[in-house]
């Protein structure tokens, strides 16, 4: 396969066609800040923090490195004065949306962002879309970005508590600003977005230790996704700790039986 010659911050390196700039930079140990990127998901270029300066041929332009596929020899600069200015502006705007995020605070310190420049909105969400994308791929296809332009927000269908949620918590784990909350209240798991209940799932009950664990989910859909038709009959009434204990006991019993 053809390899491309890329000059990355003055150093010469190679790339495969259709590799994104971010991938090439990561391979070469060049750090590009991102908020909306995850290796497991399709890039969406929502946060615009990964902007780099690209020179293909004669003209140079600013592109989002996470979703720009390299097709020809190019020169990439990831940390010029213009880019730092652009990133600073983006961070200032994002900080106005959610001033409490640790990740954003760290970036603001790094780029010297002026935090009093824009009126705070206190939205707690940077609308990176990671939760919606991960929910589509991992979870029950519950979350989405509804509306467009300035009205865009993370939402469930018609803003009501969704019956499709499987309580996997992938959205909570992936959120860069910790805007989604997950909590196990007695026998239910509640996921909250923007202070509004997004889903409520019943939890399984362990018959040995009398505690609640993992959510009750319809396994047929999971098996469908895995390409298997039959549902395995696992010991559904045991929490992982008790199941381990039971297994350990069984192994120990067998050990003494043999000798």
């Amino acid at each position, binding site marked *: 396969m053809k390899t491309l010659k890329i000059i990355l911050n003055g150093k010469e390196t190679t790339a495969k066609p259709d590799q994104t700039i971010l991938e090439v930079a990561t391979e070469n140990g060049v750090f590009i800040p991102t908020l909306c990127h995850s290796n497991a998901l399709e890039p969406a270029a929502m946060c615009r923090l990964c902007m780099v300066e690209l020179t293909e041929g004669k003209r140079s332009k600013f592109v989002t490195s996470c979703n720009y596929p390299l097709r020809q020899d190019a020169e990439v600069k990831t940390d010029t004065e213009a880019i730092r200015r652009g990133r600073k502006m983006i961070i200032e705007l994002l900080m106005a949306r959610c001033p409490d995020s640790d990740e954003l605070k760290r970036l603001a310190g790094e780029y010297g962002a002026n935090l009093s420049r824009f009126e705070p909105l206190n939205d707690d969400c940077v609308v990176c879309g990671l939760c919606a994308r991960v929910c*589509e791929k991992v979870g029950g*296809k*519950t*979350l*989405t*970005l*509804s*509306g*467009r332009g300035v009205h865009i927000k993370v*939402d*469930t*269908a*018609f803003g009501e508590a*969704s019956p*499709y949620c499987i309580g996997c918590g992938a959205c909570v784990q992936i959120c860069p600003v910790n805007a989604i909350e997950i909590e196990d209240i007695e026998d239910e798991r509640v996921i909250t977005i923007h202070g509004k209940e997004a889903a409520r799932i019943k939890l399984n009950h362990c018959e040995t230790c009398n505690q609640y664990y993992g959510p009750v989910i319809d396994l047929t859909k999971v098996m469908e996704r895995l390409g298997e038709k039959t549902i395995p009959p696992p010991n559904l009434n045991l929490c992982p700790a008790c199941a381990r204990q039971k297994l350990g006991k069984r192994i120990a019993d067998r050990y003494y039986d043999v000798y």
Partner: protein
Amino acid sequence: MAAIEVKYQEPEIDFTLIDRIIRDDYGGNKENLIMMMQAIQKQYRYLPYSALKYLSDYMGIPFTKIYEIATFYASFSIEPKGKHILSVCTGTACHLKGSGEMIKYIKEKTGLEPGKTTPDMKLTLECVNCVGACGLAPVVIINEKYNPEAELSLVSEFIEQVKAE
């Protein structure tokens, strides 16, 4: 004219009709989803909750995905709309020619904010950004009929007509 809770009221949905739209008119193809939604909207003047739910179940498309499409496009509405739709262009040219005054006038006469419907479900006021007829400003669209160089008298006549119904 009693105040009705518009949000939770839904017309009777004819599911055989939706079936016909999905299966016969568009062959049940996922690519035609937007056309199907347009056909449903034409029938009920908005996208009813249960019709979208049925569409989602029938096509095997996640309900959230359909909601995303319905909220993304300005031509779709998930809120019920009135029998008559009055759209006023608020593009730059129309604004200069006095469409802002027109909206103020309509608001005075009917109490409607842009995008809202009267409680008796007769009239909806909409603001469109530009209809591409700036040379004919101001443009008012009454029930999909374009009226170039519209005057206040035209709008007031129409409102009287709707009220008289």
